C-alpha cells in the first residue's frame, strides 16, 4: 500500500565566515546578518526542516559555525541538517553534538565515496544527505556533471550516475543544486531535478534559484522533487515561509498543516543583537 508523503518545505542558510549570506552562482553576494536573526525572521513555525551549510573557503570559522548550529538547535524545533567541511566521522560527531539531526556531505564524498557508508553505518541512513552541485556538461551521459568544492572543481563524474551510486552507498536523501541556477531567480533547473528524482528512490531536495512560490510547486510537479528548499527568498519577505507553504497547499500539493498553536515559551532563546 502506498503512503502519502507530504512535500517538505526546507529553509536553507548559507554561512560564510560566520555570517549568513545570499549567493549567486555559488559566490556570496551580500551579507544578511546573523543566523539567529535569519531564523527568527523566517521561522514562522511553518518550515519543515532547516539546512545550514558552512561555505567559507577555509576552515578557520569552524568554532563559530558550531556555535551557530548549537544556537539554532536551541531555538528551532525542526530537523536540522548541517553541512560543510565534512571529511570524516569526527566532524559528523561534532555537528551532531552541536544539534544536527542529519549531515550533508559533498566534496569529500566525491573524493572518497566510502564516507557515505561510514556515516550511514554509524548514524543511520536517515542521517546522511548527499549534496550534489551539478553543472551542464554535454560530454556527460546525463548531460550534467557533479562539481566539487563549491562549484570550483569538476569531478569528472556524471551527476545522475553519482546520485545512483550515493543512494546505493547508503545516502538517505539527495540535496540537489545547479550552479548556474543558484541565486539566479529562474527557479530550479527542472530538467536536472527530474533527471535525478526519477533515477533514485531516495528523496531528492531541489535547491537553488527560487524567486517565487510557483517555483516551489514546479519543483515538485515538473521536477518530481520530494522536497523543495530555498534560501535567498526567505530573507526579505515577512512571513515568507508561511506564504510559501500556503501557496503549495493551494496548488494542491500535500504539505504539513500550518496550524498555529499558541505556545508560551518564556525561556526560548530570543534574538540578541550583538
Amino acid at each position, binding site marked *: 500500500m502506498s*503512503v502519502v508523503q507530504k512535500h517538505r518545505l526546507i529553509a536553507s542558510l548559507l554561512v560564510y565566515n560566520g555570517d549568513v549570506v545570499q549567493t549567486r552562482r555559488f559566490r556570496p553576494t551580500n551579507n544578511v546578518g546573523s543566523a539567529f536573526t535569519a531564523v527568527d525572521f523566517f521561522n514562522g513555525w511553518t518550515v519543515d526542516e532547516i539546512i545550514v551549510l558552512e561555505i567559507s573557503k577555509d576552515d578557520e570559522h569552524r568554532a563559530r559555525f558550531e556555535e551557530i548550529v548549537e544556537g539554532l538547535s536551541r531555538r528551532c524545533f525542526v530537523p536540522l541538517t548541517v553541512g560543510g567541511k565534512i571529511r570524516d566521522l569526527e566532524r559528523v560527531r561534532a555537528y551532531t553534538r552541536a*544539534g544536527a539531526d542529519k549531515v550533508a556531505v559533498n566534496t569529500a564524498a566525491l573524493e572518497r565515496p566510502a564516507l557515505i557508508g561510514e556515516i550511514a553505518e554509524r548514524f543511520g541512513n536517515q542521517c546522511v544527505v548527499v549534496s550534489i552541485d551539478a553543472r551542464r556538461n554535454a560530454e556527460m551521459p546525463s548531460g550534467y556533471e557533479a562539481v566539487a568544492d563549491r562549484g570550483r572543481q569538476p569531478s569528472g563524474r556524471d551527476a545522475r550516475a553519482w546520485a545512483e551510486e550515493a543512494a546505493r552507498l547508503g545516502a538517505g536523501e539527495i540535496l540537489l543544486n545547479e550552479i548556474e541556477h543558484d541565486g539566479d531567480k529562474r527557479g530550479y533547473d527542472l530538467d536536472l531535478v527530474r533527471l535525478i528524482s526519477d533515477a533514485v528512490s531516495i528523496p531528492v531536495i531541489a535547491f537553488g534559484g527560487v524567486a517565487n512560490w510557483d517555483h516551489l510547486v514546479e519543483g515538485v510537479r515538473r521536477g518530481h522533487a520530494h522536497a523543495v528548499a530555498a534560501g535567498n527568498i526567505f530573507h526579505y519577505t515577512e512571513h515568507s515561509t508561511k506564504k510559501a507553504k500556503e501557496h503549495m497547499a493551494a496548488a494542491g500539493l500535500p504539505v504539513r498543516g500550518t496550524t498555529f498553536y499558541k505556545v508560551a515559551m518564556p525561556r526560548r532563546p530570543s534574538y540578541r543583537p550583538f
Partner: protein
Amino acid sequence: MSADRRVAVIDYGLANIRSVVNALNCFDVDVTVVDNGAGLSDAGRIVLPGVGSFDAGMRGLRERGHLEALQRRVMAAGVPYLGICLGMQFLFDGSAEGSAAGLGWVKGKVKRFPSGNGQPKVPHVGWNEVEIRPSTELMAPLESRTDFYFVHSYYAPLADTEAIATGICDYGVRFCAALERDNIAAVQFHPEKSQLGGMKLLETFLQADG
C-alpha cells in the same frame, strides 16, 4: 494545585538527549539531566527520550539504576511520565528488535515495520499525520489530524494498545503513535522536532497537574 516545575530527563548514555532538553528549556521549568536512578527521587515529572537499539537501551537503564527508580517513582508514586520514541517502546514487554525484557507496564510486544515489495521504506523517517483521539488533557489542544516528525523502524501495535492509544499513524500499517494510561504518556514521534504541534504537546505535559 500548581504543576511541579522539576523535570528530570533520563540519560542512559546512548541517546542524544540534547534536542529534548533544548525544547523543555523553553518553558518555565527546571530541567535536570539525570544519569542515574537516584536522581529521579525528587523529580516532579520524568521524560525518557530515546533512540538506538532496544536491548542496549534497556541495559543502559538497568546499569544506571533507572529501572528500579522508574518502577518506584512512575508506577508506585504516580509521577507523570513522558516517553519519547524508544522511551515509548520501553513500556512494553519486549521488542522484535532484541531479546531484553522491557518495563512491561503495557502488555504486548513492539514490532518491526514489514519491508520489501510495495511496502513503504524502513525506517519511517519524516513528517506524518497522526489521528488524534482528543479524549485526554494532553491531546485535547491538538487538531484532529496533526503532523509530527518520526524516525523509527519499530512500532507499538494497535492490537496491544487499542484501549489506551491517543494517536494513530498510518505507515503501511496503522500503528499506535501516542498512548496514555493514568500518569503514563508516550509518543513514538519526536515532539522536540515537530514545530509548534510538538511544543504544544510538551507545554501541555508540563502544565498538567501531577
